[in-house]
């Protein structure tokens, strides 16, 4: 499947693709963890979609705010808004599905993994992202994505949530660039 740039606006369709790909991975000791804020929105939607389709009625889940683990903290300081991380289940020996909205440099993932290990030693971590936009700076890449595209460094892809809860992808370009997202295979 190839993706046109305007497909990006349809985050809701991508979400369904993601849920389908995720379903075979679920086991008894799987837990979903969303990274604030987009990853948490996705996780909440995925919980509903996955609970509808499978018998596992209550998938354990939690949220991470990786602010305290970021490698650029000394430069940027704390965001004015932090949301406490909430991992109320025992991480020890769980198969963690870590959910982010847009995968870019891999630094958020690194911070999230470091934080997760402070809760315990998971059996495994699988990284899931709605979109892999290319541009990683670390040897980290998502195992499951709904779509893979290539954006330039001056383009900024963000997941937003409407008041009614619907998800939307917004592509902004700092330079009003005419670059188009390159097609790529999943």
């Amino acid at each position, binding site marked *: 499947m190839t993706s046109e740039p305007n497909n990006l606006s349809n985050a809701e369709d991508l979400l369904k693709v993601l849920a389908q790909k995720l379903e075979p991975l679920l086991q008894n000791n799987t837990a979903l963890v969303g990274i604030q804020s987009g990853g948490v929105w996705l996780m909440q939607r995925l919980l509903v979609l996955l609970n509808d389709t499978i018998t596992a009625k209550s998938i354990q889940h939690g949220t991470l705010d990786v602010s305290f683990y970021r490698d650029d903290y*000394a430069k940027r*300081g*704390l965001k004015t808004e932090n949301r406490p991380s909430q991992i109320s289940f025992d991480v020890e020996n769980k198969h963690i599905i870590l959910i982010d909205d847009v995968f870019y440099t891999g630094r958020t993932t690194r911070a999230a993994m470091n934080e997760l290990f402070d809760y315990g030693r998971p059996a495994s971590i699988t990284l899931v992202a709605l979109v892999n936009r290319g541009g990683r700076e670390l040897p980290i890449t998502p195992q499951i994505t709904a779509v893979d595209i290539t954006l330039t460094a001056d383009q900024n892809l963000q997941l937003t949530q409407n008041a009614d809860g619907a998800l939307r992808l917004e592509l902004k370009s700092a330079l009003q660039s005419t670059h188009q997202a390159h097609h790529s295979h999943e």
Partner: protein
Amino acid sequence: MNNPQLDSDGRLRHLLSIEGLPKKILNQILDTAESFVGVAEREVKKVPLLRGKTVCNLFFENSTRTRTTFEIAAKRLSADVISLNVSTSSQSKGETILDTVDNLIAMHADMFVVRHSQSGAAHFIAKHVPEHIHVINAGDGRHSHPTQGLLDMFTIRKYKPDLHNLRVAIVGDVLHSRVARSEIHALTTLGVPEVRVIAPKTLLPTQVEKLGVHVFHDMKAGLKDVDVVMMLRLQNERMNGAMLPSAQEYFKTYGLTQEKLSLAKPDAIVLHPGPMNRGVEIDSSVADGQQSAILPQVTYGIAIRMAVMAMLAGGQISGNLS
């Protein structure tokens, strides 16, 4: 007059007193602390925010609890901590405060937590240190104890989330209390509509009303229908001369008993900054009772101190970023 506590972008640079801090910063500290409460409940009670930083606790005046909570807070942020009880070291050999500070800066300290019996000591050090070094006031004379004021606000907010709808009474030795001053400034800045102080005339500063508080000398009248009772420690060690007849007499009039507490709202909470004089300003049955939030205050104090240190240490070179 420029505010030494804020940098040119309006961000926190030192924490010296609650007075002069905008509501926005106070709320930011309280909100950030919210995120740190959970850290203590995890398998690894640490986050890497201050990894590689050195925090110096400079205590020119003894305080076990405050020093310990600052030390724990810094360690949970992964900082290296040095606690100096200065009253028993160089100072007694005649070294000045600034010489002590300069020596520690030469050892690459990044942050100072200062407790001193003289008002303004932390200000004095803050004015002296280079730009990349941060100072936290952990209590100076009768002047200010900002992290205590903040942790009290955090505790109140935990039990009574709507601060705009509260009646709060501060009871006891307001005159000698830096805690009371910080509490009053914090409460009024955060928009608590009614702040009362309850004390005998001899233990109130002159013109205390100018801080925006209602003054009561009768404890029973003052406690009527309040949501929060903030007890102060009777500062025995600062009491010169005969301001009070006796500790027993004080307890009778201004000690918090279950009977007096029953005049407050039924769900009122009781705070005390510690250390408590049981049977002087507070009865044991109240201190250990259902309405006491005194031990949660200690727990939340760590989260508040983590939040302050994290905010001070981060983002100081953001001007270099695009």
